[in-house]
């Protein structure tokens, strides 16, 4: 069996394979468009609960575990949790702003957590633009210094970026910066509302021209124009649009379980049930699995262009209230991707 067939099986047969855990919403930056719902309240999961949860995930044969936030390194027991995740045999990814990845902390992350990949966020090619987004002066220079340190330690790093009105004129600079560091970069052209539905981040959504220029640049450099899943996997060709709730879930700091980091429709809570109970018994998850099948039909209705939509039911839900509603930003993306493809006579390269 190939790996693609394994992924297809996880989607089709509802085999939990990838989990993203938001350990905390604490963060040392203050990004303007951060999607976290900072008003969410509840009892945070304790370190002991996380350790039991990780053991349950290992028993369920979950392979990919992404530690995210907020800033995951801001969790007081990040290293303990990361080390246990390593011990339990997960492929660990860490999504960090990179601000604390330096000195002893960076070395301990490498030696104790041994992540497969660290994903850091870059918001511009200049200090002025990056720091405008993070609202922490000096964060750009510090990120670059930390990236060099982390690379010297031999860790694998990927840069994630979101195209905004503020940085769209620096897209080429961001690609150059990543290339100068020898790092892959994924620039997502969609700004999303916050998880609580607040649409303020959309005020800095990129212009259509900015998206077009980005795609042209990406096509010229053979860089991905598609959004990768949090576990780094490609879409599996089955009767579902995505693996949300079928092969993956996300968990917030208060134990709420969601089908995906972008689909904030709680399907259970780890304070009340184990992940195994939620995975097999949640009516909400059953519904989500049905919706991903319906979403595939909606996307397929666009014909071959549908693949360029990068449609996300979670994003649709927060933007329109309906996870099956193909929102304008997805259509814009499809149209501009097609133009870029036609111009170059090439197919976009998937991550």
């Amino acid at each position, binding site marked *: *069996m*190939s*790996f693609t*067939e*394994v992924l297809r*099986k*996880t989607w089709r*047969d509802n*085999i939990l*394979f990838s989990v993203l855990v938001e350990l905390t919403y604490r963060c040392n930056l203050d990004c303007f468009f951060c999607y976290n719902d900072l008003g969410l309240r509840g009892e945070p999961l304790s370190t002991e609960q996380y350790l039991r949860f990780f053991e349950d995930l290992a028993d369920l*044969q*979950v*392979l990919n575990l992404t530690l995210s936030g907020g800033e995951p390194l801001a969790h007081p027991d990040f290293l303990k949790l990361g080390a246990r995740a390593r011990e339990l*045999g*997960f*492929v660990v990814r860490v999504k960090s702003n990179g601000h604390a990845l330096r000195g002893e902390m960076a070395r301990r992350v490498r030696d104790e957590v*041994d992540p*497969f990949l660290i994903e850091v966020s870059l918001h511009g090619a200049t200090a002025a633009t990056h720091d405008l987004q993070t609202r922490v002066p000096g964060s750009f220079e510090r990120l670059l210094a930390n990236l060099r340190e982390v690379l010297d330690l031999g860790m*694998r790093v990927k840069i994630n970026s979101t195209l905004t009105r503020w940085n769209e004129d620096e897209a080429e600079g961001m690609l150059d910066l990543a290339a100068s560091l020898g790092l892959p970069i994924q620039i997502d052209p969609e700004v999303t509302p916050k998880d609580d539905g607040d649409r303020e981040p959309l005020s800095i959504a990129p212009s259509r021209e900015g998206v077009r220029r980005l795609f042209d640049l990406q096509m010229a450099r053979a860089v991905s124009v598609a959004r990768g899943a949090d576990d780094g996997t490609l879409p599996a060709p089955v009767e579902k649009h995505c693996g949300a709730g079928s092969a993956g879930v996300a968990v917030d700091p208060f134990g709420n379980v969601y089908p995906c980091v972008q689909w904030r429709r709680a399907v259970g809570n780890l304070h009340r049930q184990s992940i195994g109970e939620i995975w097999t018994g949640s009516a909400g998850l059953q519904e989500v699995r049905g919706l991903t099948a319906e979403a595939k039909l909606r996307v397929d209705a666009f014909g071959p262009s549908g693949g360029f939509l990068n449609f996300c039911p979670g994003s649709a839900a927060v933007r329109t209230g309906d996870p099956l509603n193909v929102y304008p930003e997805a259509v814009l993306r499809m149209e501009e991707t097609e133009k870029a493809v036609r111009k170059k006579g090439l197919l976009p390269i998937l991550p």
Partner: protein
Amino acid sequence: MIPLREDSVLRPAPDVRFRIVDGEAVVVRQKSSEVLVMSEVAARILALADGIRPIGAWLDLLADEFEVDRASLERDVLRFAAELAGEGILEIAG
């Protein structure tokens, strides 16, 4: 090929992560970013290679599990474990 005996103790190499999905082993080699999908037999051997039990103990278990003669298992298991060790997926513990 790495010579193994019944008293050899093996464990996954430090950069190897694996899970059993529907009877098959999905193996990730972190250093090379390589993903391998391996057979049910490999999955069973990976699960047994805990760095504590010697291969002889695997043979006892497998002979019971599959109701086959232990002696006939021995050659195949030793060969397969040696192949996995030769590929750098398993390593000698201690």
